[in-house]
């Protein structure tokens, strides 16, 4: 069996002030999977960090869908969205950073639709697990994380890693 070191940091972005979105573009196509780790807070309240993907530019079509489950401290639930242009990458909350770990599986494989699976944890609000499909065989070379309701606070970090299979 061949073995090779991988799980390589590609880029990190740290919010220097209050920002509404973070974009990673020109993502190298030399890995098998991408992992995005978010540690972000916001100014006002419990909020989901939306994730949009694309090739060359962010796809504005309704080519995403997702299924999730969550626990909010009192109950568990599950839901889904169809024919939509975003999924969720993480949670954030007032004064508490929320965590998102997003796996973009086979992101550079042009034979297949892309599957994204993520865990979002906001310790003062809820924990969630999402699985999403981007119905496109294009490689993902750009994505954007944004908070539709509140800005990310200064110091929020977004780190992208690449994992290459043997």
């Amino acid at each position, binding site marked *: 069996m061949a073995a090779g*070191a991988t799980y390589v940091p590609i880029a990190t972005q740290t919010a220097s002030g209050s920002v509404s979105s973070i974009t990673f573009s020109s993502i190298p196509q030399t890995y098998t999977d991408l992992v995005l780790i978010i540690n972000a807070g916001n100014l006002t309240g419990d909020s989901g960090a939306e994730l949009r993907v694309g090739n060359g530019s962010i796809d504005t079509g309704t080519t995403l869908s997702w299924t999730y*489950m969550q626990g909010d401290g009192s109950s568990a639930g*599950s839901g889904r969205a169809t024919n939509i242009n975003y999924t969720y990458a993480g949670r954030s909350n007032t004064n508490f950073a929320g965590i998102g770990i997003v796996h973009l599986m*086979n992101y550079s494989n042009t034979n297949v639709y892309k599957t994204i699976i993520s865990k979002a944890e906001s310790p003062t609000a809820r924990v969630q697990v999402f699985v999403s499909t981007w119905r496109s065989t294009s490689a993902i070379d750009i994505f954007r994380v944004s908070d539709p309701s509140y800005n990310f606070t200064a110091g929020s970090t977004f780190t992208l890693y690449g*994992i290459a299979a043997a």
Partner: protein
Amino acid sequence: MSPILGIYASQISGHLVTNSYSSIATQTVGSGGASSITFASIPSTYTHLQIRGFYRMSSTAENKLEMNGVTTTTSYYRHFLQGSGSATGAGGNNSNTMAGYYETNANIFGTHIIDILDYADTNKIKVVRTLWGFDANGSGYVGLSSGANASTSAITSISLVPNAGTYTQFSSFALYGIK
């Protein structure tokens, strides 16, 4: 001369790879499909293993993970929590290690990320955990599973097996070692 590590390290540019997470092997399914995937002769030089799977199956079924060729269902234990898009469910029994569930769909790939902890430690029963799911734009499941094999033997081979049908073309499974 004693090295001044801080100064030297500060001059390194580019990405640092620590060798603590390594790709061991990958299997990709061809046009004929595959009834199972096996990683054999797994080196014992890591602390943990991770399998990152991306797959379609020809039938609606669970995935199961078999260790060291043990196929006896009752040798395994599992618990899981899952969401169907409208409800949550949970279960547990003395049965196959659950490495995901998939409903057959054209073009829709499921995924699982399986962590196999202390796989070479002969003092411990082997425990795995899995994050898994698929979404087909109107149907889908997402879940978390734990599983165990009631054996302290070091794991030297792992098989992924659909409970029905086969893995279809472009499915891929990558095995990684974590030190």
